[in-house]
């Protein structure tokens, strides 16, 4: 399902003394089946943007086309439920939203809310719990008896059980240990590949953006600053650093070497093995 934003503006508390322009002139198109990372620092408009993707917020100007629905500024919208079922958002620390007696009931809540029968919801819950890499016997337990990492997975399963076409992830691994982080990111990538779920990842981790995304969108001061493949985005690291953004460790290290050793690299390296090869080449070149 394709999502297109046209000239989107969003003002918080419009027409009050507290009015605040959070987004303006946002034009963006997210293709069906793509993996997009949205980066930008605190206050750049990332969180406001992501709440538009399933109409939790409606633009104060412009329009958003989500599949076959158009959300237009100033128009009253009805039946937003179907959009919320198709676009699932995993918020930061989603385990804070767990509430029910058992894991199964908690996961079933979403689908049943969208009109799925209890029996069907249970089937979906079983599938979802497998997707997040947990054993089925966890379904009977109270979500509050689980470890932090398990709770996170259960909360994610609750979103997956709605079988969304688009998955929006807001810092999904914050607070997890390195293994948990990798497992969760790999799981989302797997779902993206195998089931063609469009994935939109909001992250501070430039490593994750570079590793998983086909396309990176940089938000800056409420608007889209730049959009491109990881290679394109990180080919001008100095610009990103000037904006107050980070670059992957590998790219930052390349910059250091260029400065200290005066060696040149042909391209930004986005993983460690690639960087090691390029350093080796660059050092040998320097010899001649």
């Amino acid at each position, binding site marked *: 399902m394709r999502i297109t934003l046209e000239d989107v503006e969003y003002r918080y508390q419009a027409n009050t003394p507290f009015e605040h322009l959070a987004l303006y002139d946002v034009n963006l198109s997210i293709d069906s089946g793509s993996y997009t990372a949205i980066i930008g620092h605190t206050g750049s408009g990332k969180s406001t943007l992501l709440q538009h993707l399933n109409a939790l917020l409606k633009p104060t100007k412009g329009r958003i086309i989500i599949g076959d629905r158009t959300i237009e500024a100033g128009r009253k919208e009805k039946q937003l439920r179907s959009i919320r079922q198709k676009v699932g958002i995993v918020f930061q620390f989603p385990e804070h939203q767990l509430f029910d007696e058992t894991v199964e009931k908690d996961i079933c809540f979403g689908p049943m809310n969208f009109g799925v029968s209890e029996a069907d919801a249970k089937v979906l819950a079983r599938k979802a719990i497998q997707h997040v890499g947990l054993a089925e016997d966890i379904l009977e337990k109270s979500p509050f008896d689980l470890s932090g990492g398990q709770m996170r997975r259960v909360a994610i399963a609750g979103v997956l059980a709605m079988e969304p076409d688009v998955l929006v992830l807001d810092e999904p691994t914050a607070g997890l240990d*390195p293994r948990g982080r990798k497992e969760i990111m790999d799981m989302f990538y797997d779902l993206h590949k195998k089931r063609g779920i469009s994935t939109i990842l909001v992250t501070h981790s430039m490593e994750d953006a570079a590793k998983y995304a086909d396309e990176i969108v940089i938000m800056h001061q409420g608007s889209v600053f730049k959009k491109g493949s990881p290679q394109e985005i990180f080919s001008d690291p100095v610009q990103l650093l000037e904006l107050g953004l980070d670059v992957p460790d*590998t790219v930052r290290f390349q910059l250091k070497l260029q400065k200290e050793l005066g060696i040149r690299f042909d391209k930004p390296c986005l993983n*460690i093995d690639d960087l090691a090869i390029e350093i080796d080449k660059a050092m040998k070149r320097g010899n001649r």
Partner: protein
Amino acid sequence: MRKKLVSLENIKFKYEGQKNFALNDVSFDIYEGEWLAIVGHNGSGKSTLAKLLNGLQFAQTGTITVNDKVLTEETVWDVRRQIGMVFQNPDNQFVGTTVQDDVAFGLENVGVPQEVMVERVQNALSKVKMSKFLNQEPHHLSGGQKQRIAIAGVVALQPNIIILDEATSMLDPRGREEVLETVRELMQEKALTVISITHDLEEAAKADRIIVMNKGQLYREGTPRDIFKMEKELIELGLDIPFSIKLSKALQKNGVAIDYGHLTEEELVKDLCELHSKM
């Protein structure tokens, strides 16, 4: 000989209704003036340790001694005045409506007189470089700024020890560096002892000492250099190794003639410089 500031002896702790011990026979010492990083997978007992050190929970068996005083329900108020904690979520620890009110909150609680309070608040805020924000409201601040305010609130109480309980895990890389740099400077100036509970292995690499927790037990303690030698083991424990070590390993694999095990990028750049000049 360095002075022992905190001692944990045979600490056992179980949360109510849980089968397993969150901490199972843990003993170690913390020395005055050191930066101690405590790392471990989710659920390894790290945060429970922090709660016990500050008397938010009490161990079922074993003793904790802080500055020669055994931590009990009677001494907990004394001990808390020596230990300041900074928690994970910047939004959960802001209690005041303005920056200065927030920093003053802890001082009010311990009955510091008004004149002293004003001075300590200003001092603490200048230490974390937030003096300009005295009357700002919290929602105008970034996560890193909020955490620096939280640190100011702790510093104003003049503790000997600061515990950072994953205090940088919700911040962006810049905010993280801001906060760590602030704590490093304070540590130098005020001879503080820092206990940092963290998943950030780059941060742990800069500590004086690391404790690795696993399943409620102390798995290993040592200098960063010792700890990161157990690379594979660390990854099996759900942890990771710093970027510079991974890169030097990959370079060796590609036949670049350098040593291995660089704890910081600076060390690695230096070695590569030397090699480059010889080529």
